[in-house]
């Protein structure tokens, strides 16, 4: 037990760090936001170091309920990085409304997500998920005086609770029919005759998780919550929890339900295609950039699920690579949205107001164009590479029709991305004078991620390949 503690350093650092910041906030009040921000960032940095140090280990701790392995490590690195960025950009957005709870909630959410990504037991899974979700509900309604923010929080909470219920029901079925909550034990039960109980369990667990990754048909909350939540929080929702939930789903599918691939593969294929198509079609009419990015995330989740549908190690590698590239792109895109302000300093979210942005703010427009084309997967932008990998995994797993359907549907998606670019580059300048602009930190992050996604990313393919292969290998 004590020996196990040495292997969960990242979780301990986050838990202690989160509580310390919470205490500081209680005693010092909301004026010292800079201090809390710094403390939270240091906590995340320390946790990152701990994850890197543990990257090579592959052990199950606490009676096999939690895994310390490369797969979890890979996901945690992404989660911590996204969390750090969302803490960094918050103060400028909230201004005077910035409160001490913000970094605390993000830290606790990150802790929950880390547990999600490393769980090897249905109960651990649920605890991690709920820890993350509870923090997220509060974050969504963080701007208490804003109607949209409160609405987003409430909506997220009600629908999230419903999804948790479904998940829990599925977990209880799996437990009832396999006699254990451990993934390995569930997998053993799946290896034998599949009875309806297990199948229902699979369906409910996957449905609950599909809600978390906002895959169609469990995506309805996404556009509303993304639109209503404060932009840094939206950036957070679109990045870190997606990674955690996707990692969790991958682990549950491969580790716990691996032998029953025939049963869940069709579900994943359905989710994938439905998400790609609906995410693309739904985005076409959107006038709000945050809603558009919400649909874009639904669309991209569909592509990630194609990698999972393959059910092979190559597929999981593709999922991980995709998550990394998706994270960089999404965070970058939301940071650009964060910088769009009109002359009075109000946030600009309407797409028609972006008309002529390329002439007002050429750098910002170029960065957003890079992010959008990368989300669309058009080479030479780096967003092409993970799409290539998931399709390759699908073709190599003999799922050629799925690959063909997915790639053809990706053309629909390209339409709305290039429509935004059209607004920024082809249209005459809009009435709204978009000025604003961010501080040096935001600018650097946006510029660095845009550059990385343009062509430089390709040079990282060997490195990414090694890391994702190492991470994926622990599941097989």
């Amino acid at each position, binding site marked *: 037990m004590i020996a196990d503690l040495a292997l969960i350093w990242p979780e301990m650092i986050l838990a202690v760090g989160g509580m310390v910041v919470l205490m500081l906030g209680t005693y010092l009040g909301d004026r010292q936001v800079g201090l809390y921000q710094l403390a939270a960032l240091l906590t995340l940095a320390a946790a990152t170091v701990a994850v890197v140090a543990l990257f090579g280990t592959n052990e199950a701790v606490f009676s096999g309920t939690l895994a310390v392995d490369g797969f979890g490590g890979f996901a945690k690195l992404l989660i911590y990085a996204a969390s750090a960025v969302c803490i960094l950009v918050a103060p400028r957005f909230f201004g005077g409304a910035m409160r001490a709870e913000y970094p605390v909630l993000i830290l606790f959410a990150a802790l929950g997500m880390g547990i999600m990504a490393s769980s090897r037991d249905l109960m651990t899974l649920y605890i991690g998920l709920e820890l993350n979700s509870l923090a997220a509900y509060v974050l969504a309604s963080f701007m208490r005086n804003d109607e949209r923010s409160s609405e987003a929080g409430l909506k997220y909470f009600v629908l999230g609770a419903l999804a948790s219920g479904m998940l829990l029901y599925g977990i209880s079925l799996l437990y009832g029919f396999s006699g254990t909550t451990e993934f390995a034990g569930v997998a053993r039960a799946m290896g034998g005759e599949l009875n309806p109980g297990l199948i229902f369990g699979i369906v409910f667990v996957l449905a609950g998780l599909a809600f978390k990754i906002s895959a169609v048909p469990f995506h309805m909350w996404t556009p509303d919550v993304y639109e209503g939540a404060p932009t840094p929080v939206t950036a957070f929702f679109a990045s870190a929890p997606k990674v955690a939930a996707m990692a969790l789903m991958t682990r549950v599918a491969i580790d716990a339900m691996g032998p029953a691939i025939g049963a869940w593969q069709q579900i994943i294929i359905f989710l994938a295609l439905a998400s790609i198509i609906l995410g693309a079609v739904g985005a076409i009419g959107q006038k709000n950039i945050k809603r558009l990015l919400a649909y874009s995330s639904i669309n991209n989740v569909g592509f990630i699920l194609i990698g999972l549908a393959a059910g092979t190690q190559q597929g999981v590698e593709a999922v991980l690579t995709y998550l990394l590239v998706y994270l960089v792109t999404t965070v970058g895109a939301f940071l650009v949205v964060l910088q769009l302000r009109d002359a009075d300093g109000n946030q600009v979210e309407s797409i028609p107001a972006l008309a002529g942005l390329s002439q007002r703010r050429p750098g910002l427009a170029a960065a957003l164009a890079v992010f959008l084309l990368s989300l669309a997967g058009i080479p030479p932008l780096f967003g092409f590479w993970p799409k*290539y990998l998931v399709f*390759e995994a699908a073709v190599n797993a003999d799922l050629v029709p799925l690959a063909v359907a997915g790639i*053809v549907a990706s053309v629909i998606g390209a339409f709305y991305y290039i429509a935004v670019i*059209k607004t920024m580059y082809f249209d005459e300048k809009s009435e709204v004078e978009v000025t604003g602009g961010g501080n040096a930190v935001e600018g650097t992050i946006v510029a660095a991620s845009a550059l990385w996604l343009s062509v430089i990313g390709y040079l990282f393919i*060997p490195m990414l390949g090694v890391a994702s292969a190492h991470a994926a290998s622990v599941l097989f």
Partner: protein
Amino acid sequence: MLSLMLAIPAVAAVACLFLGDRAARWTALGATLVTFLLGCILWAQFDIGGAQWQFTERADLFGRFQWALGIDGLALMLIMLSTFLMPLCILASWDAIKSRVGLYMAMFLVMETIMIGVFAAQDLILFYIFFEAGLIPMYFIIGIWGGANRIYAAFKFFLYTLLGSVLMLIAMIAMIREAGTTEIPVLLNYGFPPEMQTWLWLAFFASLAVKMPMWPVHTWLPDAHVQAPTAGSMILAGVLLKMGGYGFIRFMMPMFPEASAQLMWVVFALSMVAVVYTSLVALVQNDMKKLIAYSSVAHMAIVTAGLFAFNQQGIEGAMIVMLSHGVVSAALFFCVGVIYDRLHTREIDRYGGLAINMPAYALFFMLFTMASIGLPGTSGFVGEFLSILGIYEASSWVAFVCTTGIILGAAYMLYLYRRVVFGELTKDDVKAMPDLSPREWAIMAPLAAVALWMGVYPESFLAPMRGDVTTVVARLAPAKPAGDAHLALGEGKPAEATHGSAHHGGGVQ
């Protein structure tokens, strides 16, 4: 060397983004000229009859695929075409583009990098990246600096060609899985199972036929051409369409010879329809650019038919048609651009009698019209003659239909020329149009010189490609169906018995 040719325009493109209008123009011109110079050195140093792949470079930068470049004669000629047209395109937009010059020049330079990359890539994935990347700069060029309906045209261009290309990607993944390598030279000699070939062929065809463009998926081309700025049309017709033809001869034919032989009739049928149909459509156009766009489709149909003749003359002819069309159609689009800049309309009826006040212009326009028709002595003749010869060997009926296309081509081009250049000079605004400026001379003269050079001494262009065409023909030989022309070739029979049948009468017309 090839990496340098890719790097120069790419670096200049980034520089242009940060420069003022004037500096951007000169930077772009300088960079494209240097690249052209490097292209000339490439040609001079190309060892005709030497190794199939020359100037090869490899760097294992990407793990799963390589930065592998290298060219054979076919690629060399197409790279020459791109680097030759590029400085002319920059010059053509010297005064015409007034807004956001830096971005415009950057897009053209990126386009040049991409075009050279497409022709030089020796790795399947690298090729795909370059091939698809071309959409982005062209989307911007049409969308920002295009005509009134530019947004529709830009979207149509982007989505149409994207939809075509994505299927090719799936086919490429399947090929890589089957052959276990991404290297194009290895894949060229890999024997894919025949039933798989059919699927792969169809997927590639979906992409390349759109790019080419072949009837009935050509509809994006007239829209894109009409709306694009002059230089955009020049590069679109001059080089981008050649990517389709290059894809046919580089991938589809040598990699899937059995499928190519099996599905040859599809290509022939579509080509025949295209030659006649688009020529007829061109005949009734009232918009000059649209007319030339349709004529491009017709010329490309002769290219596809020539390629699928599966013999030396047909393929060499098709290649020459591609090169010639690259030069001539770019020149014709520039001719339209010259008068468009003066009167701001492309409507044919608004002009007339230009021979009187713009004699030099009329002369050049005449030369390019003749080259487009295929008058002996111009580049068009060599290509069309060789391809029709090759097609005739494969199928006299196809040759017959393609020849009518050439006749119709003469009709619509001469009709265009008569309406624009001859006749009375009645309209006042047309009367006021000045003749060619020195800048326009500097663009017209090299284009005219190359069109004549290719027509008078095509051997300079054919020699580097001959060996590679032979390789392709040899690769296709086992699968090649018997052409109907061979059926009649007897030994020592009287001449009328061999050639007398009505069946062959058509081809000789």
